[in-house]
């Protein structure tokens, strides 16, 4: 009997420590990024890091550590992706939630999950073999590996997230809201636009923010399809290099313990903080869309 009690106590301890590992890893990742990243700032000022668009950390003599053009590239590609993905995503979510029959829905949902399951390297490959030639042809460019290509691919990658979360929030709108609208003589479309969308507004915003987070953190797609030029981009037809792509390109060739090495962790810290803030904001908004009736 004593042994059984002891085992029971032991297992409780095992399960608690397993639960705590998630906390340890998250804090460990953040701590490691800050610890290594902070070493950059022994020699580089914060003003140069965030304010300069000159990135040449391995230059002989006068290396430069400005991440501004990468921040701009990341924001530009993400914004472009959202211009495409937000209307398509919300439209699809509304179709799934308000129009599709249960049977159609049961087919569409796994299909969208399948789209979410396509590995990012495969999406990047499609960017090279299909999207790049198409962009070059349509706009008369010599090369289609640019910000526009990245934006299109990131839109495809962010769509499943946006659709799933937006649909959840639309379906969370109580039936009574729709019935009240019909009782007042409104048709399905008016009900959608005037009742369901406003009622699920914070959830839809959360979906968009999570989609933004997905796009900002994506690495392989942008690495393969955006041309990777470190110069400040002037428009969507310019090649760009995002924060994620820079880490992916340079971590392999950097010497351990150099300022360049630490600056990549600094980039990682910036990226981590952005995705953490994005996620916390989305959670804050998403918690609002549960109606109590």
């Amino acid at each position, binding site marked *: 009997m004593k042994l*059984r009690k002891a085992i029971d106590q032991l297992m409780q301890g095992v*399960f608690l420590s397993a639960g705590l*590992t998630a906390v340890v890893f998250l804090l460990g990742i953040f701590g490691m990024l800050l610890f290594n990243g902070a070493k950059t700032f022994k020699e580089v000022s914060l003003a140069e890091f965030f304010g300069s668009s000159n990135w040449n950390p391995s230059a002989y003599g006068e290396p430069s550590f400005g991440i501004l053009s990468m921040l701009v590239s990341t924001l530009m590609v993400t914004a472009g992706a959202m211009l495409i993905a937000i209307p398509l995503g919300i439209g699809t979510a509304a179709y799934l939630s308000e*129009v599709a029959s249960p049977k159609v829905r049961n087919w569409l949902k796994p299909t969208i999950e399948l789209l979410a399951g396509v590995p990012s390297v495969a999406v*990047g490959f499609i960017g090279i073999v299909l999207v790049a030639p198409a962009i070059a042809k349509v706009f008369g460019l010599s090369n289609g590996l640019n910000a526009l290509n990245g934006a299109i691919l990131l839109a495809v990658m962010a769509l499943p997230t946006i659709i799933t979360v937006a649909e959840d929030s639309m379906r969370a709108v109580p039936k009574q809201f729709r019935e009240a609208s019909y009782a007042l003589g409104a048709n*399905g*479309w008016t009900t959608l636009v005037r009742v369901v969308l406003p009622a699920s507004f914070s959830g839809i915003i959360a979906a968009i923010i999570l989609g933004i987070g997905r796009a900002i953190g994506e690495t392989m797609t942008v690495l393969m399809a955006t041309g990777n030029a470190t110069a400040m981009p002037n428009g969507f037809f310019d090649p760009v290099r995002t924060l994620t792509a820079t880490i992916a390109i340079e971590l392999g060739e950097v010497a351990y313990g150099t300022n360049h090495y630490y600056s*990549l962790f600094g980039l990682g810290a910036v990226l981590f903080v952005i995705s953490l803030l994005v996620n916390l904001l989305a959670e804050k908004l998403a918690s609002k869309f549960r109606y109590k009736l």
Partner: protein
Amino acid sequence: MMISNKFIAIIGFFALLFCTMLVISFLGIILYDIFSKGASALSLDFLLEYPRKGMTEGGIFPAIAGTVFVTMVTALFSLPLGVAAAVYLSEYAPDNWLSRFIRASIRNLAAVPSIIFGLFGVALFVQGLGLGLSVLSSGLTLGLLTLPYVITTTEEALKNVPHAFREGALALGATKWEAIRTVVLPPAIPGIVTGALLGLSRAAGETAPILFTGVAFYLRYLPGSVLDQFMALPYHLFILSTQHHAIEQVRPLAYGTALVLLSLVFLLNIIAVVIRYRFRAFNQR
């Protein structure tokens, strides 16, 4: 007024249908292009041979084997840990700040970009723990990335086990652990397997976390232990489509690699979905 309202409604609903069709067509285009062009590269030799002549000929066997190997290491790390964490959250965790903090950490861990896991893997596993560039370093890094999925889906599966099961076991004199082992975990297994397969399918397709933790451009041998480097399908596709010296020449091989990678990932997905549907049908009986 009535007519114009109806007209707007029809246009509106058609717009929604159009959005949905467009999204589905994205998947269709990706699948059609890769499967139609990859099929010609596909053969038994392609699956079972090593690359030859600077990877311009031959097959992708070491990349397939490497991906399977590293995914197994990922599973060995993330499944026990993830299931145990989920048991804590579902069966033990009181409603207090610590539980909320654990849950928040898991959700935020799921939102961390995959390249950050790569950075962490380099700092902790490759250099900190001295595991070097290896299957183990990559497997552990991918395990971290998979962990939140395993925890979330397992907790869901455990929550679906009726409360009466636990109460029955406890009433018969079982300790809490005995109740969990004998009546809570067994009915949750299909749900846990579904979540695990979905998480692992994502891990198998990831490139960024393995980029600097152990994957190799080309190896003449399969990894003999978990401390060796390995080749992997997603990285092989990346190499063939961007880093190779004769990109146009190896395009068919790149398509073939993409086809095998997608098939592997989708196979895991489809098995997961089938298990989920069967399980649901079973529960509703």
